[in-house]
């Protein structure tokens, strides 16, 4: 079989389909806006390319040969594939409208998966990712399809920020302390090093945490850790303490007394957010409120 350029083949197959449907070369040529001789020649070239006779010629027209009948579904497939190839921009547009959910990277994945989003809230089609809060604000500012959760306080400017939800936290520590950890015992429960998210993730939130710790008499050195794996390792190996959302699966945290060092989270979306993003933001706020101990 002679190798033909794809462009020719597509054109030939298109002609084949019209001729097969109309059953007459002359009328098919009209339909295709061309004269009969080049169409006849096209069909012959196609037959030459596939090595089979595709049409049976009669006095009043043409009909599909057995080979032509076998070729028909293949030809239709090729045209469908061409439509799919050309429909890329439609799919991209669809992809752009799918909601992106951005959560702070300091929030443990296990908590998001098993506490925040359980039981299975419907976020069909949403794409999830984590990032520093400061980046999430920038991302949401540029994307009407993005929904962000950030650690408060943080400057949100023109973005729509839903009420802050205070999520109770547990202290992960190697120290043996009575439960729950009270305001008075916290300073001895923390130990010499407390792991925190990097200050650049959210400078104001970090400073507020530092001030709250000072207020509680916690003299621990704050060690900024970005990588969740490093966080897990340092808790185990370096005997560092950390704060995690209450009842994070797989972490033996000790609950903190009510109102002590809550994780303040807030949901954000673009002021001109797509309806799907608004819905997702509202649903996420519902999930968050369920984990929170009241809005503050």
């Amino acid at each position, binding site marked *: 079989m002679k190798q033909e350029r794809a462009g020719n083949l597509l054109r030939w197959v298109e002609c084949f389909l019209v001729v097969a449907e109309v059953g007459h070369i002359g009328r098919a040529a009209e339909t295709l806006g061309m004269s009969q001789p080049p169409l006849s020649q096209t069909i012959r070239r196609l037959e030459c390319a596939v090595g089979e006779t595709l049409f049976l010629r009669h006095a009043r027209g043409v009909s599909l040969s057995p080979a032509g009948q076998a070729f028909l579904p293949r030809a239709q497939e090729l045209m469908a594939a061409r439509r799919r190839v050309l429909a890329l921009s439609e799919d991209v547009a669809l992809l752009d409208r799918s909601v992106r959910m951005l959560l702070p990277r300091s929030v443990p994945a296990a908590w998001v998966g098993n506490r925040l989003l359980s039981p299975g809230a419907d976020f069909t089609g949403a794409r999830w990712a984590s990032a520093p809060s400061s980046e999430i604000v920038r991302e949401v500012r540029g994307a009407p399809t993005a929904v962000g959760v950030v650690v408060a306080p943080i400057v949100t400017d023109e973005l729509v920020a839903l009420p802050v939800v205070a999520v109770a936290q547990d202290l992960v*520590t190697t*120290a*043996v*302390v009575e439960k729950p950890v009270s*305001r*008075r015992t916290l*300073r*001895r*429960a*923390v*130990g010499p090093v407390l792991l925190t998210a990097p200050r650049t993730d959210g400078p104001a939130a970090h400073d507020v945490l*530092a*001030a*709250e710790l*000072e*207020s509680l*008499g916690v*003299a621990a050195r704050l060690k900024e850790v970005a990588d969740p794996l490093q966080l897990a390792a340092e808790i185990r190996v370096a005997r560092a303490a950390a704060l995690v959302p209450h009842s994070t699966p797989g972490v033996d945290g000790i609950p903190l007394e009510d109102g002590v060092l809550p994780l303040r989270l807030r949901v954000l979306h673009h002021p001109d957010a797509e309806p799907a993003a608004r819905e997702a933001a509202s649903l996420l706020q519902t999930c968050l409120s369920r984990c929170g101990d009241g809005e503050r």
Partner: protein
Amino acid sequence: MWERPAADAVLGRLAQDVTGILRDADMTGAVAVRVIDAPELPAFGWRADEAFPAASLYKLVVMVAFCRAVDRGDLDPTALVTLRPEDRADGPTGLAICQDPVRISWRDLVRLMMTVSDNAAGQAVLREVGHARVRDVLREMGLSSTVVRPGPAPDPVGYDPLLVSATTASDLVALLCAIWQDRAASTAQCAFMREVMSQQAWGHRFAEAFSYPGAGVAAKTGSFGALCHEAGVISHPGEKSIAVAVLTRSVRRERQIAVSNRIVGQIARHCVRSYRQFL
């Protein structure tokens, strides 16, 4: 349980830290700390008995002498006094920068003397109270290393503790404890002193170091050229209060006083933070 650190170990480390902070800033200094109403906890002192020019810290003693005179009925705190510009001491704040005669009560003069370190108010109150009453306060309260001499002397005499008002960090902490334990004067007058000290206007030194939520600061600064002091009481809800005195002298010129302000606050904060581990 994370071992509660032994007091000796923590205070030993504190002395090293204070030395380090001052050395980094190229400053000399003295520090004293005591938790009020906690006799079981050791006091901390670093060069605490070394005399420093008091600068405006002399106003603390004058305030106590004033309150005791009120207690004895010698002075009416609400009586009005007129201060004329020609009789007033110079200074950068308060009535010292006003141009016209001012009519004001004695207790509000004390308030200006303490909250904005008004030199005109300080001089007027000291004149009214008299040096004899001030000496009585120092003797009766056992502040043997503190002396109040008339008028601030110009640089460089200002740096010689033998020529100007002088004090030590431990005397200041003892005085603060007496005010907080209602021993310095009557209960009412001690409450007045604590209130006035909590109204200090400055946002630097102690105020900046203890700006985190929940911390209360009642203090008096002392500044004169390269001298940068503050003495006061830091409180936290539900905890015993901590009296701190930090006296420093810089080798720098005045323009770098921001460094001194920061160091005074940093030392106080470090001391308080260390003590709170026992509370």
